[in-house]
């Protein structure tokens, strides 16, 4: 049971931090008399939002995003490989070629399928 005490303490601290912050902001915040219209808007990095957020997105957003993530992850594999490729030798090169070729085939598929066409 001993080993659980740190976790319980951690849990208590974590939850109390949350309450503390919310409580602090409630106490410290400035209460404006009249609410400006922009304050109720969704935060869009300074841009003024156009229309409601609850709209139907075109699926191609997702397709593009998915393809992006796939190739993004590829980088995550490529970087450590590149750092060690000398030590790993020929086998690693062959392996990475296989990996990249498979991804390339996927890319070809996506391309031919028109996943990257914005129309």
């Amino acid at each position, binding site marked *: 049971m001993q080993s*659980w005490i740190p976790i319980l303490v951690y849990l208590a601290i974590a939850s109390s931090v949350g309450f503390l912050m919310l409580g602090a902001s409630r106490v410290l915040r400035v209460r404006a008399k009249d609410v400006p219209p922009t304050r109720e808007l969704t935060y869009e990095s300074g841009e003024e939002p156009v229309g409601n957020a609850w709209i139907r997105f075109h699926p191609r957003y997702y397709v593009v995003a998915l393809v992006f993530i796939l190739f993004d992850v590829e980088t995550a594999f490529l970087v450590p490989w590149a750092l060690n490729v000398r030590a790993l030798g020929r086998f690693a090169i062959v392996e990475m070629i296989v990996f990249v070729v498979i991804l390339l085939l996927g890319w070809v598929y996506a391309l031919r399928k028109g996943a990257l066409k914005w129309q």
Partner: protein
Amino acid sequence: MIIPHFTLNDFLPVMPVGVLMAAAIVLMLSEVFLTSTTRTYQAIIAALASIVAGGIAVNNAFEPARLVLQGYAVLDPFSSWTTAMVCLGTFLAVLLSAGFLKHRNAERGEFYALMLFAAAGMSLLSLSAEFITLFINLEVLSVATYALTAFLRRGPRPSEAGFKYFILGAFAAALLLYGAALIYGATGATKLVEVSAALPAAFAKSPALVYAGLGLVLAGFAFKVAAVPFHMWTPDVYEGAPTPVTALMSAGVKAAAFVAMVRTFLFLVKGIDPVIPFTVFSLLALLTMVGGNLLALPQRNVKRMLAYSSIAHAGYMLLGVAALFAPKLVEAGAKVGVLTATPLTGTAQDVSVAVYKGLLFYILGYTVTSLGAFGTISALERREDETRGNTWDLERFAGLAQRKPGWAAAMALFMLSLGGVPPTVGFLGKLFLFSAAVDAGLLGLAIVGVLSSVIGVYFYLRVVVYMFMRPAPIDAPAPFRHWTTELALVTSAVLVVGLGILPGTITEWFSRVGMVFGH
């Protein structure tokens, strides 16, 4: 830094997967490069790939059991046979899909590619010997099946099913991953062999952590094998998915998950009080056998009934798993109970060989039977019935024997096999598992299993009654004809009877020693 050195030998176990993956990629590219209007060739490519992969797997099954790929995977007959049976299931499912998709004008190379990906995931899952690998392979398998479930997008059911499957599957995968993380935290290892070595010490140090980890890992597996109470997604998803996909899920996914679960837990029970895994598995088996059969009982929807039936069948397999984990040391004069082991002869026998044989044979039998049963349904269902919501109603099977005696006979055969009536393969599978359970002393549980399978006979035979003894409705559906569907059904039927009558060589192969690595 350790520089890995791989030999070709290391890649032996993943060769079937390589074949499946390559064929999948070819199929995907064929879809974008070739513009032929007839697409049966895609099914043929997929079927051939599964045959080749299955052949390699059978070949692998005679290799001695060993660790490969630096301990991340095993090559043992258990996994190789599973791969072979997954390939058999995929072969049949692909053939069924060809006719099914053509009938719905939905033939796409991606469908077969996804099936092959799923099959690759199943094969890999059965040979994973490390938690991360296990998880990745589970996801490969899961993502492919999520997509397959919702493949026929039109209509509310497929998307609902796909969504539910995805959400709950992700939840279960998260449980499993969390469990693996806890075990890693306790032992500092992810490779099963190392975990197993470090577990006794970890137990001594922080038992609760290990228990939490084991429980969560088990929950993740229980979801995949659809054990009660982790089964609730099953009927909804099985009903919503395209029927050939349901068939593959009920056979292949379950088989792979079972094998992975058995393998993982064989490593993870080191140093633990043997009563605990035994009790947990017994309880799961009890709930699953009884629950699956009871839930299937009131169903008039045959597809949904088969979904519940697949839960019940998972229960029988869990009975075998429970027998595997039955405590070897039993107090003298222990009482016979449902969740206790009381060997009849006084000393517990080592039933592991019998359980492995039983499990593999059961998987094989259930694969051919379930593919056949779902396949028959898939050939009978009509899109236009879906609006009325009675696609799979028992009424739709009424009088099939008069209209299409061959189809009715095949369906009756599959139903009898599911019910465990000799001389079908279903009977032998049950016999092997139940007798292994009795030998391990699980008398009470085996009796419950037999009783619950009696309930099962009722709803399986009800289908037969409808087919043979009820007059056909006026608008009764006739099965669509496609040679691949018929080939698949004939193959299944022949295997159901053939394996039921002549199981000799197969059971001999399944009962060799050294079946599972490390045991």
